[in-house]
């Protein structure tokens, strides 16, 4: 195999599973270490640099980082990355002095942003400090997008949302509430240098089966949640059926529980294995007494005398044939109810964008948007968040915002938007003495901390009682130690190795092998423990000095315990703290290199690299 090129930031970045899994590449292990040291404000600011809304996301993030977390592969449960973020947000001091500064003198460029959801807000967050004038148009009378109107207050308190939205608005954003954009043509005719569309995917999907239009009390999930938010809806019947089993369904059933629902059933077409809702949201719903009914396909609404009395379902039996799922109808059942909420998905709708102004739409009615630059077919118009490729989540909306801001900045400077700024990396030894490292390398066998919830009885009294209490100090102390510090890399220097096998023998999880070189397929089978997880890289060194064999490391379950480096007599293995340097609009990666993280002089073997390769 080609020796692994660790000077490309991509290699070590991928080892940091959580950060690699996070759409915005939040530096998780570093923020967890800061929490461990009680440096909550710094931890919060580190979070904010990449994910912009740590308090909101610490409660609501879809957390793609957690299934990616190495700890899952080691002991089955990921580090509670998301809820630790909340710890930093809850315990931080006032951060106003540390927020990006906005220059008095503007750069003369004006940007229009449609919608005040997380995507647009992120664009504004990145562009305001560069002197841009940002005008945000919002249809509703308050900012925040779906974070405000659809995520219920018992999951996300308004105060948390208000504060983090205000951090951006208070940079001097020209926020125009209750001002829907009704014509893109008209907007483009105004004097803006670029337009960003962050209008979300505002339409709930319909279920057009018999009886749908014959009765009231059949609601569309996201519209109903919005009405609940605006207090246009303050009660619901005792028996409620929720159709669909995604995250919207979870919010609908739990909100129903708080508005008078007693007998609430979430009706799913398939079995639990295929549910779209996150497992923790399902657990929370079950804890609140919601029933989840599997393998029921809706057939028709049962309406008597103009009144909804129930819904008829086909009971399905699923079987697998040739890798395909087939269903068979067993029988038909009618379940009585007072209300039905449809939560079967969201769609995009752009009635306000004319189709003859150079913005191409595909057959599905979606704008054609470039995956890297976020620009649509009309130069100077960018899309992001749910508006770009359909419903996603907040953290993707944020990442789209960052990338769109980079493009807008290039565009306004007359640079090609395909010129993406380069990534960089720092790699500095974590050694601070004999067998001493500047991180806690001892493996903690502690189980994942379980979130404590408010008592059920108190929970349903008001709509906005936050259910999760957050971690206690003790829980936090344990949970931070579960993090394996995957950014503290095992860094190998082949010419130093004397092939004594000490590292191979000491590694508790059989990561290391010294063997003759070969093609990757073959090498993977010849290691101390076969490297079966193809999603994880194997590191291959240059030829070793004494025997010309190679050092191979399977990254899969490395604990980053540093024992290999402790046992190595020649420091051929060293533990090095890796930081991927991420560029933002107007802030190249080297900016951080010079200011925030200087490389100690005299450590010439240590790397600071800039790379133009995409991550």
């Amino acid at each position, binding site marked *: 195999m080609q020796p692994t090129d660790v000077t490309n930031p991509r290699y070590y970045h991928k080892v940091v599973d959580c950060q690699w899994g996070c759409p915005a590449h939040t530096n998780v292990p570093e923020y967890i270490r800061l929490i461990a040291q009680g440096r909550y404000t710094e931890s919060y600011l580190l979070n904010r640099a990449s994910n912009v809304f740590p308090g909101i996301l610490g409660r609501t993030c879809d957390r793609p980082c957690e299934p990616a977390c190495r700890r899952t592969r080691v002991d089955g449960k990921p580090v509670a990355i998301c809820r630790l973020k909340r710890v930093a947000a809850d315990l931080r001091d006032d951060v106003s002095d540390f927020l990006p500064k906005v220059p008095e003198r503007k750069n003369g460029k004006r940007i229009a942003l449609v919608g005040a959801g997380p995507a647009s807000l992120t664009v504004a967050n990145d562009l305001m400090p560069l002197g841009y004038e940002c005008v945000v148009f919002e249809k509703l009378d308050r900012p925040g997008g779906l974070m405000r109107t659809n995520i219920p207050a018992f999951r996300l308190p308004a105060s948390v949302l208000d504060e983090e939205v205000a951090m951006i608005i208070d940079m001097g954003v020209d926020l125009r509430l209750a001002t829907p954009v009704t014509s893109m043509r008209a907007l483009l005719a105004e004097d803006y240098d670029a337009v960003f569309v962050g209008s979300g995917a505002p339409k709930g999907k319909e279920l057009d089966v018999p009886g749908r239009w014959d009765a009231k009390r059949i609601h569309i999930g996201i519209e109903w949640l919005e009405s609940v938010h605006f207090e246009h809806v303050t009660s619901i019947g005792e028996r409620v059926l929720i159709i669909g089993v995604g995250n919207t369904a979870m919010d609908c059933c739990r909100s129903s529980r708080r508005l008078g629902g007693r007998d609430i059933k979430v009706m799913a077409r398939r079995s639990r294995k295929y549910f779209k809702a996150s497992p923790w949201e399902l657990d929370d719903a079950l804890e609140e007494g919601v029933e989840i009914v599997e393998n029921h396909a809706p057939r028709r609404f049962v309406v008597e005398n103009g009144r909804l009395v129930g819904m008829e379902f086909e009971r399905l039996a699923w079987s697998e044939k040739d890798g395909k799922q087939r269903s068979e109808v067993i029988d038909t059942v009618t379940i009585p109810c007072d209300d039905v909420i449809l939560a079967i998905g969201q769609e995009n709708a752009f009635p306000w964008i004319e189709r003859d102004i150079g913005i191409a739409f595909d057959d599905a009615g979606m704008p054609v948007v470039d995956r890297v630059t976020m620009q649509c077919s009309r130069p100077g118009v960018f899309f992001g968040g749910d508006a770009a490729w359909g419903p996603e989540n907040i953290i993707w909306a944020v990442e789209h915002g960052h990338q769109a801001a980079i493009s807008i900045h290039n565009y306004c400077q007359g640079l090609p938007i395909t010129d993406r700024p380069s990534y960089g990396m720092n790699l500095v030894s974590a050694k601070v003495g004999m067998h001493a490292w500047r*991180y806690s390398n*001892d493996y903690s066998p502690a189980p994942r901390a379980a979130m404590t919830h408010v008592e059920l009885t108190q929970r349903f009294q008001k709509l906005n009682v936050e259910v999760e209490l957050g971690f206690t100090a003790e829980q936090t102390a344990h949970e931070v130690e579960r993090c394996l510090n995957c950014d503290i890399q095992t860094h190998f220097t082949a010419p130093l190795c004397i*092939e*004594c096998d000490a590292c191979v*023998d*000491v590694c508790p999880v059989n990561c290391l092998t010294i063997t003759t070189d070969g093609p990757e397929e073959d090498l993977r089978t010849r290691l101390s423990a076969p490297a079966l997880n193809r999603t994880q890289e194997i590191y291959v060194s240059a030829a070793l000095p004494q025997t010309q064999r190679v050092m191979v490391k399977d990254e899969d379950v490395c604990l980053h315990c540093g024992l290999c480096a*402790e046992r190595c007599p020649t420091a051929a293995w060293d533990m090095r703290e890796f930081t991927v340097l991420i560029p933002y609009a107007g802030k190249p990666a080297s900016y951080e290199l010079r200011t925030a993280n200087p490389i100690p002089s005299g450590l010439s073997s240590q790397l600071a690299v800039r790379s133009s390769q995409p991550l």
Partner: protein
Amino acid sequence: MTSIPKPSVRHPGLPRNALGLTTRDYEGGMSTLCAGCGHDSITAAIIQAVWELDLPPHRAAKLSGIGCSSKTTAYFMRQSHGFNAVHGRMPAVASGVHAANRELVCIGVSGDGDSLSIGLGQLCHAIRRNINLLYVLENNGVYGLTKGQFSASADVGSKSKRGEPNVQPPIDPVLLAITLGATFVARGFSGDKKQLVPILKAGLAHRGFALVDVISPCVTFNDHEASTKSYRFTRGHRHELAPVDFIPLTHEIAAATVPGDPVSVTMHDGSVVRFRSVGEDYDPTDRDAAYAHIRRLQAQGEVVTGLLYIDERAPDMHGVNGTIEEPLTRVPYASLCPGNAALQKLQEEYR
């Protein structure tokens, strides 16, 4: 953080042996030897060998003397019996263990100082008695524990770390053992587990004394340029004479039918040692020829390794003495020690 013990968490895909154990279950305490010491690799090789043999850890006895090498019995099979004897006296203790309980698998670990200086007489008599013992001699050419003085295995001309050459001729444990009539003689290198593990397994299966001399570089006091026991020197001068595969009893049939086998030796328990290749004029079952061949290569400056000599026919200590099959520890005290009256009667016969 300061130095940490090896955490008990293990690779999820680690294979299990017939007892349901992983190699991690055969580990001992955390080594306190210098990082990079050859002895630690030998420990790892022993763990691999006993795991592959499905050895129940509580049926083994670990015996050692004094030295860095002798400390290593603490670093594997924490569930086993163990005795850390005084300097050079491990063979006497091993003889006692083997006499008392012939069912225990005895693993002795010693150093070149422990075996060839203070304990030389003990080693010779253990060979002569042919006690059933795997005797691992971790050979680094120095007294590591006492900071690197030349040992009796240091080669003439090999230099100390401070540059003084050794002037006294070495004792070669392999040639010594063959001379004394040892029934299993091998040499390995800590840096080559592929070779060492089958040798250790064969040594454990051998009924009788199995001497395994393992070149085991001392990273701290004897791994420099002018040393003849360094990693680099050993790699540069090693001659693998008789590589073996060890085929346990369960695989016997397949092993026996391999065509063109140069030499296969069937062990007392039915397992087979198969020599993958041996030189034309070399026969690892012919004591005189083996001795002469090793001498010849050694005279050319080569470090000869492999399973160099094997004799499966000789009886071990219990065989020679005609001891009962039952371990003495299980014989009721009354029959083991028939009492004063019986003694008087016996003595009467000689009067």
